[in-house]
């Protein structure tokens, strides 16, 4: 098995605050639709924050012990259907699943604590974070490599990297990979305790940015070796060209002020792909809208791309989707693939005033037409976890 095998994307699925079909999600992004607003799923009266970007679930939410688990199954099913994987005749023992998450099924502990007798708060699926990858595998009958990964808000990209590595090392013939998280009262409390939450809009790279808003959702991609995908006549939607996991090793919540880890991760992902900065056509930024992240990320992009950053289109989808935590980078990977397909970069919403500290070519207002062969998707997380992903056109 070739370590340098070309890895391609043959299927995708999303559950997002902007819709739960890939096309609906994409069209809403292109329109610059902002999904953040008043949270409705649970009582926010005891919290000092009441906004975020929710996935619409209707009344079903009352009977669902873990939305994260439900969404992981849903996007895995959608992605495998999109890839026509079940009809491909691949041995299910050679198809694996990997999902990344920040809190996984833990959010359901909130409900368990609220609804059940205090002596019995544990009758809930929060006890098994490994379910995030095992439950989709069980439902789909897939018995290949199975792994739930946590690298904080970089976890979606880490799951993609895990899947690509499993294929390159011959441990699997196809991998369903993705990221997922849901908003809970406790995650709101955590981010509020950092004073990291915006109260109106998320404004990545804007001079007036005041913080992030939590979002939620999931996305999955089906990965295969190119030769296998071509042999079965699968539609190739994109490529995984490179990835690099590094640690800032600086602070549990703050990024290194010089973006040391971010710079290394971007450069290593390019090295792995055998590409130069000049080969990158578009950056899907981590862009949370916090003062610290955006200025550090902008500085890191400047260091990596130099003057090229003047004309390198950057977008930050968290302006519309909120920060979907472990789901974020998986959703952003799907958006990158669609950007390459259509030659369109969605705008960064709510960006009105350029910040000299974020001296980047931020796409605003309307989608920008651009031929994109290579897209860089950044993902940074607490604990100094960083995983940048380089994706290519078919």
């Amino acid at each position, binding site marked *: 098995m070739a370590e340098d095998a070309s890895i391609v994307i043959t299927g995708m699925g999303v559950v997002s605050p902007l819709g739960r079909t890939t096309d609906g999600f994409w069209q809403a992004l292109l329109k610059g639709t902002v999904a953040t607003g008043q949270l409705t799923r649970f009582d926010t009266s005891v919290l000092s924050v009441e906004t975020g970007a929710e996935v619409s679930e209707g009344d079903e939410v009352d009977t669902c012990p873990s939305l994260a688990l439900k969404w992981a199954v849903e996007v895995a099913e959608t992605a495998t259907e999109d890839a026509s994987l079940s009809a491909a005749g691949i041995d299910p023992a050679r198809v694996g699943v990997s999902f990344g998450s920040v809190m996984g099924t833990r959010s359901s502990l909130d409900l368990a604590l609220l609804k059940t007798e205090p*002596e019995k*708060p544990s*009758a809930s699926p929060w006890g098994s974070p490994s379910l995030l990858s095992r439950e989709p595998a069980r439902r789909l009958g897939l018995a290949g490599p199975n792994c739930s990964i946590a690298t904080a808000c970089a976890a979606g990209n880490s799951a993609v990297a895990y899947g690509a590595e499993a294929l390159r090392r011959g441990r699997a013939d196809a991998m369903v990979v993705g990221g997922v998280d849901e908003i809970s009262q406790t995650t709101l*409390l955590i981010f509020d305790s950092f004073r990291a939450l915006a109260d109106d809009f998320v404004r990545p790279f804007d001079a007036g940015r005041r913080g992030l808003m939590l979002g939620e959702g999931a996305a999955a991609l089906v990965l295969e070796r190119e030769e296998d995908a071509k042999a079965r006549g699968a539609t190739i939607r994109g490529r995984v060209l490179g990835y690099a996991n590094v640690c800032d090793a600086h602070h549990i919540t703050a990024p290194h002020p010089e973006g040391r880890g971010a710079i*290394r991760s971007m450069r290593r992902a390019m090295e792995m792909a055998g590409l130069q900065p000049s080969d990158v056509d578009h950056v899907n930024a981590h862009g949370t809208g916090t003062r610290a992240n955006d200025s550090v990320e902008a500085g890191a992009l400047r260091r990596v791309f130099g003057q090229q950053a003047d004309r390198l289109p950057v977008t930050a989808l968290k302006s519309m989707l909120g920060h979907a935590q472990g789901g974020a980078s998986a959703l952003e990977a799907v958006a990158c693939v669609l950007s390459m397909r259509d030659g369109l970069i969605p705008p960064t919403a709510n960006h009105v005033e350029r910040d000299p500290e974020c001296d980047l070519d931020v796409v605003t207002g309307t989608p920008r037409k651009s031929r994109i062969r290579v897209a860089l998707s950044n993902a940074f997380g*607490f604990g100094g976890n960083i995983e940048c992903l380089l994706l290519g056109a078919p």
Partner: protein
Amino acid sequence: MSLAEPNRYAVTGVGLVSGYGIGADLCFEGLLARERAPRLHDVKAWPVGDRLLPVAGPDRDQVTSKLPSQQLASLNMEARMALAACLLALEDAGLDEASFADDSCGVVVAAQHAGLQDYADLWWAGMRADDAIVSPTRGPRAGFNAVAGYLGIRTGARGPNVTILNGVVGGVDAILYAMDAIARGEARAMLVCGVGFVHPVEVPLLADAQPEWEPKPFDVGRRGSCFGNAAAALLIEAPRRDAKAMVTAAHAAYSPDMDSGASMYRALSQVLAEDGRKRVAACFAGANGSLMGDAVEAGALSTALDYTVPVCAVKGGMGECLAASVVAQVAMATLSLRHSFLPPTPGLGEATGLLRLRVPREPEKLSEGTLLVHGWDAAGGAGAVALRDPEAA
């Protein structure tokens, strides 16, 4: 490393914090003496209730005393245990911390419930307490990746940093992740750490499993497992002569049907094939004293291995340490290679003949061959790791 080279990686240091105390040697000596971990705690259910769960685990003050005081702030007990185990592994490898603070050194943690109690406490403080001010230092501890993040910060390791959430089998995936990172050239050294920790909020659920104070893996009278708190660490590097053991193969498998033992057999047979050596000297099994799990594992082992291969189940002494288990078993296998002895299985009285395994009741001189480590969980996960003496490898 090119593809043509065999997949061999050096274990250059081991560290263990367990109910036997602080240090891998203490655990190995206890196992040789067929002693159970002497320290049993009662963990009280949270937030209310009078249920207690017996847990084999280290003395918390002893763990704390092993760490530099400036490293204690912000660390919960599972992070402290993990840090202590990692520092022991670095010391065992003859490395000072400064030499690990590098772009080419990384950390991969296998955890099951890292930060769970902090998460529950946060909810309680925010939603139930009159004063809903939540400390900003508490939030980061509630994430799954908190232990790995703190280990990165405290050791200065700036290479790969990942947390694997794969239950008991997570240790195998963590070892695989480290091997891949070294093979890709992303790291020259990886600390692989497994952490198993029983949180008070889990007690009602775990207590329903009717844990056994005196687990008896593979015994005819086994009635269940006892939970254990532990952190185990390995320093894994590219092959080198002064290694303490060589990892020659690792494989994790999953099957929705745990009862069939399909994933166990797949993991074992894949690892034996990759290892390529015909003779297996011994097997460190994942048996924990459970009626069903031990029987399924015994079936898989007896299918994959010759009856003459001696089997040891360290969980008879350490307890079921969840995500720490496999890493701890590899640490004990490494010490077995170092001392050329296989420990017996604590708690074993009479091995049931139905199991078709040879489970020694006394220490045995280790014969030449591969050492197998096997792990499994009740949700269908299984994994195996093959180790050899560096000279033989």
